């Protein structure tokens, strides 16, 4: 009994991992011979036990137990081999073993065909564990070799045609790398007389001279090459591409993790080469992601991504070491690692399950659950919240910023963006399933359930670790996660009836929004009315569609609540978290649209670019102030201008500013019609809020002067002008209004840029107004599209007869937008112009005038070609838009009317909210508002206009009484003495402003699109030219390995020897 207990004790030690793995490994062939099932059972038992042992020991360490040092042979190190199981080791081992267990599940159908493959897999995992835990250099070599050989064999097991060739290349390259490792080891032994890593590190002074340099570089090269740095990684890519998903995933996450940890262990020896390591890591990250853009093969794509991630990890660890930030290591490296581990492994498994060679082929026949998992995993991999990668990247960037390593930040962000580009491109393919498949047949479902389970668990683990990391970073407040929780709850009822789901969604948002925003004050509170209240108001209209709308309501819940959390963010981290959540959920919502997937990708990429600008801005701020509080942004001293510029750039991109607007029309046009309303009326306000934050904290408090503000003002007004000009030439109704949104947001940007009280009030006033009229417009358009099934305006016409209410609402919205008195638009324009004149921004004023004049063109076009003119024959019978669509519009009409007649109701709270930032300069005389230049008495204007409208109306009516007025039909027009033949001929709508195009159309040729297309093309061709090294020849790859060593040698002063 005692012996048994002792044995169990021994086995529960980390050493038990080896014992169990080896013991089981040796016995599996026997069991397998006896009965195949028992072999599999032993295999799983051992794997599970390995994970459990790691887990138990890690738990003990987390709970305060000291790191476990395992000595062998009863002799003290350095004279015997010892192992260490500390926090980091434990984490790595546990993660790897967990993934290995799940991977085995996924891999089992192939694994169980041979006893050898079972034992190889088991020992491979043990090898990785050994690499992580051992503290002996030569022992490390052995574990590397164990891992390598097991890998070789498992690769060779693959069924794909080229797997053998790929495997041979892999063997060639890694065997050279191992040879280097061995040489390095022996020469280090020569110099230090010991093999114990700790001992070597202690005696690192002995490593000197050419031999020391060369030995260290041998080790470094070997480990780096095993991590597959650019360009010495073609062999790895080939293996990722051709090998079975089970082994590819293990190579990508497990083996790489082991090697990475080995590198980390030996890093104290490499103090002099940290720059090289960082450079290699950084370049690998950047370049492999660049090359990935052009990749079509699913698994090779994952390969590029894997290599990129490893590059990032290498970069991170080198930089952390360089900046002596070891304390952050668990969070950053651990976070990135865990993120990569689960996400990449899950993706490989998924790729194996779906089994499509090219990412383009994912566009048909992929099950809904698989697409969902793909989305989750890709999201995690890209580093979006709430996954660990997000937190780790944030921490990394902040740390780098604290050490003013801004170049690296830029590199990381650019690389991340590139990675997001190709990964989400893949997701886009998967999203556009050719047809909505029926729910899977039950029998198949259970089978696919078993298959997909490991991937699901990986995804769940990502959520859990993400939450854990948030907890570690002290941001896991319930508030921050409320959107996700609510979204999850909505997801649970996602299968229920379409229209019914709206009510719980509204309730969730209302309750959640109230909880989140009821303690806000000042401008945030005003924004909360707009974002949450407005969001709810517009979302009511979503009920007009009765189809199931899978995914719509959960995502909408997340979106609206993340807007609420955005408002209550105190720190830049919370802000960024909510921002990313908003970006992500809105992206996914856009993909739900008719042809939304492609434009959504553009939207996402620009949004991510925006987010990364914001992140960069926050990081600079953190570097300058050392504080994450938004309130401290202003204390950034000299960096204020650059912070302001970065953040403003981010928000401008998100708002579709001039030049970076190309995502906007597509995303607005192709998303669901009611969601477009939310996107334009509500979500775009998040950018304005952001802009307000920076304008308030940076623009005013720190008095950065005019320059950035002036530039911002110009950007705003150019956005307004070109948005309007481009809207003029659209044929698609939604694109027209989308460009119009862009233009209107431009005014707001300009207003914000003014940094004056009146300017801000005008910006906020226009914001509210924009919410009202854009909400109406998009909802009306939703109704029109619902009834006509058309989006091209020239295919509509004369709908005023069928949809009088919609027409009226659109008309009022358009008058409110145009700025024609007496409706609310005028107030905004008046304040904006007055503020501009006060600031002496005359040229901007002129542009603003011009753009508001141009706006008339598209506004009229919208009314004319859709509602007026000739009705098409097929539209004769259509009905008014559904009541549920009209209802929110009515509310908003009332809103427009109220603020038109009594703008004081709106301006007073705005003014009060802005007052803490900039002293109030508004002068009220009764109902009249006086500015330096002019005055504005809205109620009086309203009264006068009503009066002067009545005079001719009465006059006309009087005369009309004396006439016989005949109501006529649409063809009763003068038509040069002929009769019209078809409405299409008589409806002037197509190329409505062709003459305008002839006059100044040259200003709006799609240069921005062309520019961004050329950027895309350029990056693709750059990727293509950077991948010429991957010629598929194993000898070339081997040569690169040697060249890496030579290069490192030369770079690190080899020439001086």
């Amino acid at each position: 009994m005692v012996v048994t207990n002792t044995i169990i004790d021994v086995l529960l030690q980390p050493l038990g991992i080896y014992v169990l793995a080896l013991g089981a490994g040796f016995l599996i062939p026997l069991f397998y011979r006896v009965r195949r099932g028992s072999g599999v059972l032993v295999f799983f038992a051992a794997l599970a036990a390995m994970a459990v042992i790691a887990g138990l020991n890690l738990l003990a360490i987390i709970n305060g137990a000291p790191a476990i040092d395992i000595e062998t042979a009863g002799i003290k190190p350095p004279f015997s081999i010892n192992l260490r199981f500390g926090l980091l080791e434990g984490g790595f081992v546990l993660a790897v073993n967990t993934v290995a267990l799940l991977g085995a599940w996924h891999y089992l159908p192939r694994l169980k065909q041979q006893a050898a493959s079972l034992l190889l897999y088991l020992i491979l995992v043990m090898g990785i564990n050994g690499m992580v835990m051992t503290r002996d250099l030569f022992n490390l070599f052995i574990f590397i070799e164990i891992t390598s050989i097991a890998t070789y064999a498992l690769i060779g097991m693959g069924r794909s045609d080229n797997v053998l060739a790929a495997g041979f290349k892999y063997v060639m390259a890694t065997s050279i790398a191992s040879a280097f490792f061995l040489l390095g080891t022996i020469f280090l032994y020569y110099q230090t007389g010991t093999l114990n890593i700790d001992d070597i590190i202690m005696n690192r002074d002995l490593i000197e001279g050419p031999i020391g340099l060369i030995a260290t570089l041998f080790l470094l090269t070997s480990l780096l090459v095993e991590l597959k740095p650019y360009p010495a990684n073609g062999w790895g890519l080939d293996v990722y591409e051709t090998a079975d998903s089970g082994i590819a995933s293990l190579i990508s996450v497990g083996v790489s993790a082991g090697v990475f940890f080995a590198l980390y262990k030996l890093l104290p020896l490499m103090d002099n080469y940290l720059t090289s390591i960082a450079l290699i890591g950084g370049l690998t990250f950047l370049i492999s992601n660049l090359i990935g853009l052009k990749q079509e093969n699913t698994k090779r794509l994952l390969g590029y991504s894997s290599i990129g991630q490893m590059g990032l990890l290498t970069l991170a660890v080198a930089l952390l070491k360089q900046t002596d930030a070891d304390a952050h290591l668990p969070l950053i490296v651990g976070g990135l690692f865990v993120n990569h581990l689960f996400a990449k492994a899950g993706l490989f498994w998924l790729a194996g399950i779906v089994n499509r060679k090219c990412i383009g082929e994912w566009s048909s026949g992929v099950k809904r659950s698989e697409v969902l998992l793909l989305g989750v995993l890709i999201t995690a991999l890209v580093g979006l919240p709430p996954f660990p990668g997000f937190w780790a990247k944030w921490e990394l960037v902040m740390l780098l910023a604290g050490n003013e390593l801004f170049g690296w930040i830029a590199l990381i962000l650019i690389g991340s963006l590139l990675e997001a580009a190709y990964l989400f491109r893949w997701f886009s393919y998967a999203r556009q399933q050719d047809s909505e498949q029926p729910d899977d047949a039950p029998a198949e479902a259970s089978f696919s359930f078993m298959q997909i389970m490991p991937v699901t668990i990986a995804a769940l683990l990502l959520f859990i670790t993400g939450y854990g990391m948030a907890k570690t970073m002290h941001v896991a407040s319930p508030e921050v996660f409320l959107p996700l929780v609510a979204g999850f709850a909505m997801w649970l009822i996602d299968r229920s009836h379409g229209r019914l789901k709206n009510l719980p969604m509204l309730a969730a948002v209302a309750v959640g929004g109230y909880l989140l925003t009821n303690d806000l004050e000042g401008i945030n509170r005003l924004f909360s009315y707009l974002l949450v209240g407005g969001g709810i108001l517009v979302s009511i209209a979503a009920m007009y569609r009765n189809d199931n709308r899978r995914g719509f309501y959960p995502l909408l819940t997340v979106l609206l609540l993340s807007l609420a959390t955005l408002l209550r963010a105190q720190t830049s981290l919370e802000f960024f978290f909510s921002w990313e959540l908003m970006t992500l959920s809105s992206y996914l919502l856009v993909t739900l649209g008719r042809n939304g997937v492609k434009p959504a990708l553009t939207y996402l990429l620009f949004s991510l670019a925006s987010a990364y600008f914001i992140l960069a801005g926050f990081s600079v701020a953190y570097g300058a102030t050392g504080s994450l509080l938004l309130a401290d942004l202003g204390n950034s001293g000299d960096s204020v201008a650059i912070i302001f510029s970065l953040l403003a750039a981010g928000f401008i991109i998100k708002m579709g500013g001039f030049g970076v607007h190309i995502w906007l029309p597509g995303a607005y046009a192709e998303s669901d019609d009611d969601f477009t309303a939310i996107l334009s009326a509500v979500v775009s306000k998040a950018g304005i809020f952001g802009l307000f934050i920076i304008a308030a904290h940076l623009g005013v408090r720190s008095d950065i002067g005019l320059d950035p503000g002036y530039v911002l003002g110009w950007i705003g007004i150019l956005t307004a002008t070109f948005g309007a000009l481009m809207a003029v030439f659209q044929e698609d109704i939604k694109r027209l209004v989308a460009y119009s949104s862009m233009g209107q947001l431009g005014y707001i940007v300009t207003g914000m840029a003014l940094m004056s009280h009146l300017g801000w009030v005008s910006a906020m006033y226009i914001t509210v107004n924009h919410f009202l009229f854009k909400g109406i417009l998009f909802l009306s358009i939703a109704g029109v599209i619902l009834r006509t099934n058309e989006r091209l305006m020239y295919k509509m016409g004369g709908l005023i007869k069928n949809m009088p209410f919609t027409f009226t609402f659109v008309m009022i919205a358009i008058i409110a937008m145009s700025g024609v008195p007496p409706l609310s638009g005028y107030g905004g324009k008046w304040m904006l112009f007055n503020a501009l004149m006060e600031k002496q921004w005359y040229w901007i004023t002129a542009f603003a005038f011009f753009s508001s004049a141009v706006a008339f063109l598209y506004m009229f076009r919208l009314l004319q070609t859709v509602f007026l003119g000739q009705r098409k024959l097929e539209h004769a019978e259509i009905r008014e838009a559904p009541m549920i669509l009209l209802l929110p519009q009515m509310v908003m009409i009332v809103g427009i009317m109220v603020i038109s007649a009594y703008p004081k109701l709106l301006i007073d709270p705005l003014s009060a909210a802005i007052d803490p930032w900039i002293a109030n300069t508004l002068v009220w005389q009764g109902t009249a508002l006086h500015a330096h230049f002019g005055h504005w008495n809205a109620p009086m204007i309203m009264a006068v206009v009503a009066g002067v409208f009545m005079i001719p109306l009465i006059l006309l009516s009087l005369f009309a009484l004396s006439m016989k007025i005949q109501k006529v039909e649409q063809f009763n027009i003068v038509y040069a003495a002929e009769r019209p033949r078809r409405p299409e001929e008589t409806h002037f709508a197509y190329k409505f402003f062709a003459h305008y195009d002839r006059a100044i159309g040259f200003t709006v040729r799609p240069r921005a699109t062309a520019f961004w297309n050329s950027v895309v093309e350029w990056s693709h061709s750059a990727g293509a030219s950077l991948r010429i090294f991957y010629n598929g020849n194993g000898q070339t790859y081997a040569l690169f390995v040697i060249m890496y060593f030579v290069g490192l040698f030369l770079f690190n002063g080899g020439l001086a020897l």
Partner: protein
Amino acid sequence: MIKRLFIFMILALMAVIFFNLASNYTENTSLSKLGHYYVEKGPLEIGAPNLVTAVVVTYRGLDTLGEVTVLFISAAGVGLLLRRSRRKQDIDSQDRDNRAEESKNSHKPASEIVETATELLLPMIILFGIYVFMNGHLSPGGGFQGGAIIASGTMFLLLALPESHISRLMIAITESLSGFSYVVVGVLGVIMAGGFLDNRFMDLGTYGELFSAGAIPLIYTFVGLKVGFELSAVLDRFRQYDQNEDTDSV
């Protein structure tokens, strides 16, 4: 050609690096720290006159276990790589006899001299192998060397008598059991002595005798058996695959 020139240049650079190594190398005049300890304490602590064995089996026992594992997995890997796919086997089975006939014809039977010599030499080779690993702690040699000698016997057998049959089952059982026993011995070291793979849970015995130095002879026996059978298995697999290929290509 340019590629070759390039490779030559790179290797020339390597040569320069190696020259740097060599030119800065000075021969050791005294033992390293580790070596010093082992030479000084090894005989007493471990009880094995052959210090290399002491290092291999005990001080760096984990390496040796790994090494055994490497062999084990490479044997398994070779087996995995050179396996015959199931489907092919089914097709083959239909006209196996046919093919066996042909394959027999394609190999000339060994001459009688060879056969006789084999019968004579093989037991001696194996016996020598056993001797080498049993005496590993006393004299140069050890489990690996002994195992290799046994495997060379197998090699000899296969070359001389290509048609001879080697029992897969026996190999598998020996392989697995000896490996497992090795691990068990290691665990016994933890339980009954200082640590994993500690050889001293058995009596150290008299210095210099065959059954001394604790568990080293035991371990070396397992290692020797395992190495021998594994290498044999590798050789056998290559042979069998080769035959398959021949039959396939006919």
